[in-house]
């Protein structure tokens, strides 16, 4: 198989095996958690570890950008085993809000594909709308519970595979057809396939428009506000 000379080992494996191993060379989802509260960081870290994620917890938007390599105005070539699969951030933080962090991530060509979830103690519809419109995958009202995190991670597993399909041509078919031995969560994939043919409402807020059934369930509370003419 022709391989670009400059690729890393991870990339080579990626092309050979047909699936992306860049989630720090394991199947674990790597989550970057951002929260200025020490208590909340501890809790979210535990919640994510229980759902079998790798976690990097930072206390500010600035540090999050530094971690991603975005802070110094240079695009990071983040494939050193620390690829971030999901960013989960508090909204209200001193300095840079979670919303501002998300905007910066979405503006970056290297990281705009990373799903961002926002958490907030304030259940303000206008705020939720704004976040979702700007590209947040989901919005969690604090205090965060295990069921919230499970829902996000389950949805991520689907999104992650869908992301693979979008990113690679041949890979796409390979993953689908072979049933992807990475995903032992086949019930999840059947769930996804069946939902795409159902008439569940689509989320206009993100370009990927993934019809995750769990997401749609969450969305129904805010349906009227979210179904704008955008997208």
């Amino acid at each position, binding site marked *: 198989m022709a391989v670009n000379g400059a690729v890393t080992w991870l990339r080579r494996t990626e092309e050979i095996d047909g699936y992306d191993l860049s989630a720090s060379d394991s199947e674990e989802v790597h989550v970057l958690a951002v929260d*200025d*509260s*020490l*208590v*909340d960081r*501890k*809790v979210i870290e*535990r*919640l994510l570890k*229980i759902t079998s994620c790798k976690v990097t917890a930072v206390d500010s938007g600035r540090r999050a950008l530094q971690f991603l390599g975005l802070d110094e105005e240079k695009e990071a070539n983040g494939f050193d085993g620390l690829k971030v699969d999901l960013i989960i951030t508090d909204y*209200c933080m*001193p300095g840079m809000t979670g919303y501002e962090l998300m905007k910066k991530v979405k503006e970056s060509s290297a990281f705009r594909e990373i799903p961002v979830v926002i958490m907030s*103690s304030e259940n303000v519809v206008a705020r939720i709308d704004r976040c979702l419109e700007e590209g947040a995958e989901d919005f969690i009202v*604090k*205090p*965060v*519970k*295990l069921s919230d995190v499970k829902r996000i991670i389950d949805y991520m597993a689907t999104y992650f595979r869908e992301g693979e399909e979008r990113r690679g041509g041949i890979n796409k078919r390979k993953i689908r057809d072979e049933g992807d031995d990475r995903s032992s969560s086949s019930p999840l994939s059947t769930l996804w396939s069946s939902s795409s043919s159902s008439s569940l409402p689509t989320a206009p807020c993100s370009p990927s428009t993934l019809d995750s059934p769990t997401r749609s369930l969450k969305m129904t509370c805010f349906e009227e506000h979210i179904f704008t003419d955008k997208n």
Partner: protein
Amino acid sequence: MDLVQLQRQLVDYKTSLYNEGFLDEQFTQLQELQDENNPDFVVEVVSLFFEDSERLLNELTKALEQQSVDFKRVDAHVHQLKGSSSSIGAQRVQKVCIAFRNYCEEQNIEGCVKCLQQVRHEYSLVKTKLESMFQLQQQILSAGGSIPM
């Protein structure tokens, strides 16, 4: 006191904390995150809460003592305290914080001072109760028993 009695005492004590509104379901959530591999999780989170709260209460006291009170700053501290108390299920502390924030918005200094007193009081109550609860748990563990949930 034998093990069974200790365990019963713990259950009763916990139940009373919930009934009296000191703790809410978020505390239960935290307990569910604890396991044999992370046996001190709840104590660790609660300890962080204690440290954080003490810092915030000091900041609040200083801020409200100023000649010209910066209500935005006061509100920011209360917001943090509200957040962390909510995250561990310290319901009564959280409730006072909500009232506190309203006074900040109104720039009502008397209201704020009152709320600070109240929140200090509620905080010290929940701290004492949680510490008693942890002590009881420790006694049970030392006696070779397990913590009833």
